[in-house]
């Protein structure tokens, strides 16, 4: 019985405490390489002072994550400065492939903050558990109240942002019993165009989104449980000011069923098996744009079905985890152009010619306590991936460029890595080395005339690409005592057969106004490194100051700079928190970008510094908790753009926000 209570506590708790507890649980040593981004309604645990901001804003608070912005919605996460094909984003371990050929729907755009408790970032090869990756993995972890609280609780969220009149309304319900639980939440967001620091309205930056999520668990017996989860996400009328087209509808249905057993033996602690299915429908069009050279529609569909089975265990000095995963994805996208001459037929092409991907992989992780102060983390994996073009018309389409192309391509992807940690007292030193491979993404392998509005080239996929291979080194030095914590981190990737679009001379671009055609090729290698520094100091009780600095650089073997690399960026934050009151002031900025890629259409992102303020008050009244927060981002209304802004569109100017969160909680009689 004691075990049961303990287990229930670990897995659940109140919505608020549950998050911390489960975060602690997962930060056992086997996952020491995981960085956690907390997504919480509790101001004290967030780096984000606008609690009801989009998930993108939460993710951007983390040093490892860069977000490419094409507008106010659906920012594209990049890990460690590596483009998104090089990392894997999952939701609770589930693979989802975006359905947009222009990366306008990263996986993170199909969830809401209310669905999630945290995001786990794993760097480099360590992120291979659910798919071949060289940059790392970002797992968005679902929120669940878990068993045994005997409590019903609910929250009502309401937020407003003045700059783009973003209204956010949401609610969640949590019902927890000893043998079952149910979580239900929904969120609506609607935003108009935002204004930049010169008070100019940025046209086509509006969006609206509706998200509904349900999760339920049933405890079969003391050590076994089943859980089902579904997310329905429906975004409409999304503008992309940096792009020539918008999205009238982006929809996803994400469903899963999981079976978990605990305490299989003294060695094997937990065994989880999940099956899942998701479908994404993405409708890109230009109906809102008054002047276009030609009208076009570019819808895309992506369906993924998969499973994983993960078993965790431990012995006296080892902790280990084995993950087997498999999935199938079908990606299809097309383009229809409507000629200005009504006597001409519509122009139609397959831009993702019905690409099927089968993937099956094994990944093993081990944490070996060599000595009281020494730990060795090791992991290795192997995966099989097959790509197949199932549609004969799709094969014929690509055979225009590759007459000898076969419709099936098989790949074997390997990875292994190790890191050694030494923890004397308050210090922690870690050094790691790893090797990993990845297969080209759908667009890199099979994309057909995909226009990139940054460099203004049409991109053609290359089915003959070999696997990209990455050798990576990383190191961390950290110090922490009661008041001071310091952390310095460095990553170095040497990527062989680096995949990049190269201009192909003599070919005529399809898109009106495009500069040419680029075909995905492989350069011998590219090098990408990044370094970050974090420090925080507790000045007096409740008052702390923290600072961070990040720098990334990437270049090819010919010393050509890679695009979207973060120049030296910094942030300072002063935070005060007492029981009821919290406030923070922050300053963020970057120096002028000196290393950028003119080949990719980049110009140097100028230097900027912005300041933000936030404050909140929280109190209880009867069974209710009230939390009121407000603040202002970009206090001095600076006009700025960063390295991650597509086509250097300006960011939002001064933005006032208000949050109101009302919570209600009622204990239930212990039964069931």
């Amino acid at each position, binding site marked *: 019985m004691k075990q049961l209570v303990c287990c229930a506590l670990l897995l659940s708790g109140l919505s608020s405490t549950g998050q911390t507890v489960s975060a602690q649980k997962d930060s056992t040593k086997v996952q020491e390489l995981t960085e956690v981004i907390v997504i919480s309604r509790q101001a004290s645990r967030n780096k984000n002072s606008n609690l009801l901001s989009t998930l993108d804003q939460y993710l951007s608070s983390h040093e490892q994550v860069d977000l490419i912005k094409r507008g106010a919605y659906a920012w594209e996460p990049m890990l460690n400065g590596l483009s998104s094909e090089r990392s894997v984003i999952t939701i609770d371990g589930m693979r989802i492939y975006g359905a947009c050929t222009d990366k306008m729907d990263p996986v993170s755009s199909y969830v809401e903050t209310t669905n999630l408790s945290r995001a786990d970032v794993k760097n480099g090869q360590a992120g291979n558990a659910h798919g071949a990756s060289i940059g790392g993995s970002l797992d968005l972890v679902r929120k669940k109240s878990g068993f045994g609280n005997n409590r019903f609780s609910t929250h009502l969220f309401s937020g407003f942002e003045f700059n783009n009149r973003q209204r956010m309304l949401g609610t969640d319900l949590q019902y927890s019993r000893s043998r079952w639980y149910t979580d239900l939440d929904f969120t609506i967001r609607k935003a108009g165009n935002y204004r930049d620091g010169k008070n100019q309205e940025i046209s086509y930056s509006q969006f609206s989104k509706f998200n509904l999520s349900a999760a339920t668990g049933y405890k079969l017996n003391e050590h076994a449980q089943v859980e089902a989860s579904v997310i329905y996400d429906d975004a409409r009328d999304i503008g992309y000011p940096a792009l020539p087209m918008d999205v009238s509808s982006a929809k996803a249905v994400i469903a899963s069923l999981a079976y978990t057993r605990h305490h299989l033996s003294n060695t094997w602690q937990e065994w989880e098996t999940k099956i899942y299915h998701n479908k994404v429908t993405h409708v890109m069009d230009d109906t809102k744009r008054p002047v276009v050279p030609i009208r076009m529609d570019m819808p895309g569909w992506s369906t993924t079905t998969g499973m994983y089975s993960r078993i965790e265990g431990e012995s006296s000095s080892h902790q280990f985890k084995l993950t087997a995963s498999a999935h199938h994805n079908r990606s299809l996208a097309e383009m229809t152009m409507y000629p200005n001459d009504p006597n*001409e037929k*519509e122009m139609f092409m397959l831009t993702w010619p019905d690409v099927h991907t089968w993937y099956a992989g094994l990944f093993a992780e081990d944490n070996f306590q060599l000595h009281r102060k020494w730990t060795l983390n090791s992991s290795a994996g192997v995966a099989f991936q097959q790509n197949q073009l199932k549609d004969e018309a799709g094969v014929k389409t690509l055979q225009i460029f590759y007459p000898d192309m076969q419709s099936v391509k098989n790949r074997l992807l390997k990875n292994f890595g190790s890191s050694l940690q030494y923890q004397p007292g308050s210090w922690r030193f870690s050094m790691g080395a790893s090797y990993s491979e990845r297969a080209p993404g759908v667009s890199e392998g099979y994309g057909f005339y995909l226009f990139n509005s940054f460099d203004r080239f049409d991109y053609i996929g290359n089915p003959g690409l070999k696997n990209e291979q990455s050798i990576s080194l990383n190191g961390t030095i950290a110090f922490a005592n009661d008041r001071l914590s310091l952390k310095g981190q460095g990553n170095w990737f040497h990527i062989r057969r680096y995949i990049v679009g190269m201009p192909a001379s003599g070919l*005529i671009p399809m898109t*009106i106004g495009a500069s040419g055609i680029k075909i995905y090729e492989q350069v011998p290698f590219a090098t990408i490194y990044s370094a970050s520094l974090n420090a925080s100091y507790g000045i007096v009780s409740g008052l702390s100051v923290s600072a961070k600095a990040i720098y990334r650089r990437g270049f090819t073997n010919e010393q050509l700079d890679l695009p979207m690399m973060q120049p030296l960026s910094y942030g300072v934050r002063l935070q005060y928190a007492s029981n009821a009151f919290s406030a923070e002031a922050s300053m963020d900025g970057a120096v002028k970008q000196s290393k950028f890629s003119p080949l990719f259409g980049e110009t140097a992102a100028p230097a900027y510094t912005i300041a933000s303020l936030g404050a909140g008050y929280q109190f209880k009244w009867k069974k209710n908790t009230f939390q009121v927060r407000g603040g202002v981002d970009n206090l001095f209304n600076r006009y700025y753009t960063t390295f991650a802004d597509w086509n250097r569109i300006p960011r939002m100017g001064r933005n006032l926000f208000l949050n109101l969160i009302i919570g209600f909680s009622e204990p239930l009689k212990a039964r069931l």
Partner: protein
Amino acid sequence: MKSLFIWGLLSLTLLFTACSKNDEKPAPADELEGLTLVKSISNATHIIDLYTANGKFETGYNPIYFQIKTTSGSLVDNATTNWMPVMKMMNMSHSCPFSAIEKKQGAQYTYQGFIVFQMPGNDMEYWELSLTYTINGQAYTIKERIQVTDPTRRKVQSVMGSDNKRYVLAMMEPSSPKVALNDMSVLLYTMTNMMQFDPVDNYTIQIDPRMPGMGNHGSPNNIHLTQGADKMYRGKLSLTMTGYWKINLQLLNANGTVVKGEPVAGDNESSSLFFEVEF
């Protein structure tokens, strides 16, 4: 027991094979599968049914099929046939490129050939098709006016080259274009006199497909047309999407000199020599 079964099966197979051999008169309808009647022309003794795939004679390359039947309705399978299409203009007449006539492959009663009409007819100026055929040593003639229309997209061009020769180019393939690297074939004739057109050897037909409706963009990996052993000009036409394509052409003689057509470059968006494809 097992062998008995096998023998039984074998004899059954033989029986059916024998049956189908006895029954070797295919219904004439099978020979005309996929074809549509364009016109029936007749004289006192015979009726000739003319067929094409779409039931029309159009400017361009027309594969034409026909059957000869007596007025009483029985099909003739032993005729030797010639034809001559003539354009009757206000003050002159001329012919066009056409093939000899032969039996359709695998058919007993159906004859085939092709005619390249280089212009359409109208009320005042029209095409007349005469068929002369011999059955069992006796010669017959049928001559009748036929209607030739323009398809919406150009498949043939009759042009005067810089060498003062008149050329007729007709596109045979692709007849049903796809988003793919299509096989392309073209017939090239020169007008020897008003009534005689002869195939031209050793020329090159350069192609540059463009989409005028979308910035006049082109397509990759086209292969210019050169002459094969069967005299036909063949190459590869790359079409990257559906819609309207203009296939700009340049005709080069055996010495590599352009006799007709201009490159698409700079301000020049189109060649004077072109075909059109829409799908």
